Structures are given as structure tokens and as C-alpha cells.
């Protein structure tokens, strides 16, 4: 794909504007890494009152006083450097609150980075939260079309997929029923069916994708594996180490927003398991070293 201008400084996907021809790019030769994160940090600030009021803004402006120190700052990601090449299957591990989900959301363009740059080449399919953008007043079919539009498909392209989606979810007879009358299981199945109906270049999968009954779950797992095989790059977040070992070839270990380890999946998982088994509550050795203000850059 000839690129007329450098896109590195953009934190968002640059293939999205090149039309919806997801398959068109596929045959062409790769140009650089699919995903590149450079010194990416992301900070959340908890204000004591959630709303940032006009009064405060005016006072701060008028009095030119220092911005009050917010109640808590929280670096969800800190100096993360990742390059994802074509064909890589990446598994992300880490304890709760390590920044795994934030990383996925950053790649899905939901959060912009506070510092650093994110460059993503290719269409992104976020299997992060199911049912994003569903409208409960609309029928199942309309929701499929609407969601498809948000994922970058025209009505026509989506209408071609509708049959396969119904086939997969088994909700064909409810297609004209407004979503608000769906049971939660049906809703989850529909959401999953739509989200996985597309062929992405970069697939982002968050854990806890177990939806529906056992039968559907087996189908879902199979479908995700199929999707993973078809996509150019996969980032999978999970707590199930065995499935990560199965599915991925490269591992990322995150701890408190930092990238602790980046390497072949087996090594990373072994190190992670060792660290968590030795002291489940205490931070792993590397992190302990970093607790002292340390220069950026962990193992990876």
C-alpha cells in the first residue's frame, strides 16, 4: 500500500480512511509493524467531585492559581513500548488493574494516550465489550446493521452477513423483535455474533468472553479461534494461562501499567506463574525494583 504521508504521529488507525476494503489490503505486502506504541503513558485523574465545574474553571482562570492537586492520579499505562508485527499472536497477562484492558482500549482508539504515540495500521475489531452501540428500541436486525456500520461496513455488506450471523446465533426467528425483549443470553449471543462476523486485520480480545450456555460457549471459542487465524495480528487478554499458551506465540506481562516482560509466550508465562505463585500479593521482583523511582524501561 503506497503511503503518501507519514502516519507515525497519529494515534489512530490510518487504514480506516482508505475505504472499507478490508480484504483489499490483505493481499498487499506489509509495510512496517501493524501496531507501534512508543513511550505510551495514560493517566487517569480522579477528581473529588466527578464533574469539573464551571465555577472552578472560572476561579482558576481568574485567580491564575495552581490547579488544585486532584485527589488521586493514576497512571494506567506507563512508558509502554510495543511493536506488533504482522502475524503475531500476543497474549497479555497481569494481575487485576495492571493496565491490560486499558491497553486494549488504547489500541481500539477509545482512549487517547496522555504521552507518546500510538500508530495502528489496519482495521481493528474490538471484542472488548459486547453490544457496544446496541439500541434497545430497535429490532435485532436493525441492531446488526447499526453495529456493522460502526465497525465500518455498509448496509449492503452487512446484509450479506446477516444470514451467517443468524445461523450462528440461532436468533433468526427473533430478528424483528426489539432488543429490549431479548433475554440477557440472547443479547449476549447477538452481540457476540455481530462482533465476530467481521474479518479484521487486528483483533483485540478481552477475557471473559464466555457467553450463553455450554453449547454456545463451545461454538464461541471455536469462532474466536477461527477469527484469530484469519486476522493479521491478535492481542488477547486473559487470565487463563493454558489457553494463552495454546493460542499465542508472544507474551506481554503487565504490572501496574508497566510492561514487565515481553518475549516468547512460554518464557513470559513461566516467569509470571513463578512470580504469582511465590508471592501472590507482593509485586514480582522486577516490580519491586521499579517501585523506587526508576528510569523507564522494563525487560521488554
Amino acid at each position: 500500500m503506497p503511503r503518501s504521508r507519514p502516519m507515525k504521529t497519529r494515534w489512530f488507525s490510518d487504514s480506516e480512511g482508505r475505504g472499507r476494503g478490508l480484504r483489499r489490503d490483505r493481499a498487499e505486502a506489509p509495510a512496517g509493524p501493524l501496531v507501534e506504541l512508543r513511550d505510551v503513558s495514560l493517566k487517569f485523574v480522579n477528581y473529588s467531585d466527578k464533574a469539573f465545574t464551571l465555577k472552578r474553571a472560572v476561579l482558576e482562570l481568574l485567580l491564575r492559581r495552581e490547579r488544585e492537586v486532584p485527589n488521586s492520579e493514576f497512571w494506567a499505562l506507563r512508558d509502554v513500548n510495543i511493536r506488533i508485527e504482522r502475524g503475531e499472536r500476543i497474549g497479555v497477562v497481569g494481575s487485576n488493574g495492571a493496565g491490560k484492558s486499558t491497553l486494549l482500549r488504547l489500541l481500539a482508539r477509545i482512549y487517547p494516550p496522555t504521552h507518546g504515540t500510538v500508530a495502528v495500521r489496519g482495521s481493528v475489531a474490538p471484542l472488548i465489550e459486547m453490544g457496544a452501540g446496541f439500541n434497545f428500541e430497535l429490532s435485532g436486525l436493525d441492531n446488526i446493521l447499526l453495529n456493522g456500520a460502526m465497525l465500518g461496513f455498509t448496509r449492503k455488506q452487512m446484509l450479506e452477513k446477516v444470514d451467517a450471523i443468524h445461523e450462528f446465533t440461532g436468533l433468526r426467528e427473533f430478528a424483528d423483535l426489539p432488543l429490549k425483549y431479548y433475554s440477557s443470553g440472547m443479547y449476549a449471543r447477538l452481540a457476540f455474533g455481530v462482533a465476530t462476523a467481521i474479518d479484521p486485520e487486528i483483533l483485540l480480545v478481552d477475557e471473559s468472553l464466555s457467553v450463553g450456555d455450554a453449547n454456545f460457549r463451545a461454538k464461541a471459542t471455536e469462532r474466536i479461534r477461527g477469527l484469530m487465524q484469519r486476522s493479521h495480528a491478535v492481542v488477547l487478554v486473559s487470565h487463563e494461562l493454558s489457553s494463552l499458551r495454546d493460542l499465542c506465540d508472544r507474551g506481554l506481562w503487565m504490572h501496574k501499567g508497566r510492561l514487565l516482560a515481553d518475549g516468547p509466550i512460554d518464557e513470559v508465562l513461566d516467569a509470571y506463574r513463578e512470580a504469582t505463585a511465590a508471592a501472590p500479593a507482593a509485586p514480582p521482583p522486577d516490580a519491586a525494583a521499579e517501585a523506587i523511582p526508576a528510569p523507564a524501561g522494563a525487560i521488554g
Partner: protein
Amino acid sequence: MDVRNQPAADEAVETFPAPPRARPSQVWGRRLAEDREELTRFWPVVHNMVSQELRVRYQRSFMGFLWTLVNPLLMMFTLSMVFSQLLPMKLGDGGNYTLYILAGMIPWAFMAGSITESSTCIIQAEGLIRKIYVPKLVFPLVRVLINMVTSMLSLVALFLVLVPMGARPSMAMLFLPVAIGLTFAFTLGLSLIVATANTFFRDCGHLVGVFIQAWYFATPIVYPVSQFAEDLQWRFWLNPAFYFVEMFHDVLNSGRMPQLSIVVIAAALAAVSLGIGYAAFKANEDKMVFRL
């Protein structure tokens, strides 16, 4: 949750989006180009949202989509009853007072509705914004477009009542698309400003309603300008909405082309509003997700 709003001066270099090394004009040029690309890509989303919102609005009602037409008709009937029977006023240049009100009401309802709805559009789309990437420009645009469709239907309804009221189509009505376009641009700009402001300062939402109400009475919609003494009429020139409403008055009620000066000022106002609105929205777009 929040990303810090403004980085300290010494950090400004490494903040993101990447520091504009190029001239600002190039930065905005790039943003415009990107937005054009994105909006083309997400146009199906806009289309879907508008059509489905309209569909849901009249779902399950007996008359269904007919309501979009009947509603403005009934509204016009009420308005004309109130203002021609209860509170009659004299128009300076003859013309039909009822028609005068209706002609002014259509652009005003479009502006007021769009701005009010846009003020909460980002907050209401929280579920979407936090889960999936959609260009945020889509949300105010959808609100304005929905109001646009409704007021176009009101316009159709107005044409239906024009004939029994004695008005005839005139050449001046060819100017309508221009007037509509200018009003659209002006309203979209204001909507973007309001949407941005209310996302960061929730207090704004409460003010918008009151402000719109006050603005309504400050604009010659239910009263003609000629009600006031000549030497006081210049005060209306300070009201930006005046020019837009006046274009519709001229075309629909008086059946003449609006004065060139009014059109030029309206165009300038539309450009300024759209420019400021777009700049304000784009500059804060990235931070919105943290303010929800």
C-alpha cells in the same frame, strides 16, 4: 476519571496529540481532511442513527410516520389561533400575521431543538463512546440532522397550509435552499460549541434551556420588528438569530428575496459559528472520553 486537562508548560512538548511542528493552518487542514475521510466512512452510522431515531419516535403510534407531518400542522394551527385571535398584532408591511409566525417558527424550532439536544448528546452517548470508536463529531451532527429532517417536514406542512391562507409560491422561494443551508451551518456550529461546553462543564446544560428561551423572546418571531420605533430597531441587528429568521420571513411571508446585506451577514455568522464550533470541538475531542 480524567486525564489532566492542560499539561504544565514544560510538559507541553511531549503531550499528545503530537505537538504541531507544522504551521497551525496545516494542522487544521489535516484535521479537516481526516474528518472528511472519517465522516465518509462513518456516514452509514449517521444515516442509521438519524433514520432509526425518527422511526423509534413514532413507533407503535397509530399514525406512525404521518405524525412528523401532522405534528407541525397541529402546532401551526395552535400558534396561529393564539397569535391571530388572542394576541393579534399588526404587520408593518401587510402580509399575513399567521404566516409570519409560522415562517419564523420553522428556522427557530430547528435552531433551538438542535442546540438543546446537542448539549447532552455526548453525555448520552457515553455507553457508545466508552466501548467502541466512533468519531465524536457524529453525535452533534446526528442531533442537528434529525432536527433538520423534522423542520423540512414542517416546511412541507407549511406549504400545505400556504395555499388556503392565500399565499402563492413565488420566485423568492428558490432562495430557500440557501437560507436552509446557512441556518444549518450556523446551528451546527453552535451545537458543537454547546456539546463541547456541556461535556466539560455540566452546569452549561441547565443554562442552555434558559438561554434559548430568552433568545426566543429577543428574536422577532411572534412579534414583527415593525412593532418597535424606527430608532430602536437596530437593536435586533445585535441578535445573530435575527438574520436567519428574517431570511425565512422575507421568503415565506413577504415573498421577496432577502436583502443582500442580511444574506451576507448571515453567511459570515454561519462561517464564524461553524469555525469556532469545529475548532472548540476538535481541540477537546480527545479529552471527552475521560469526562464522561
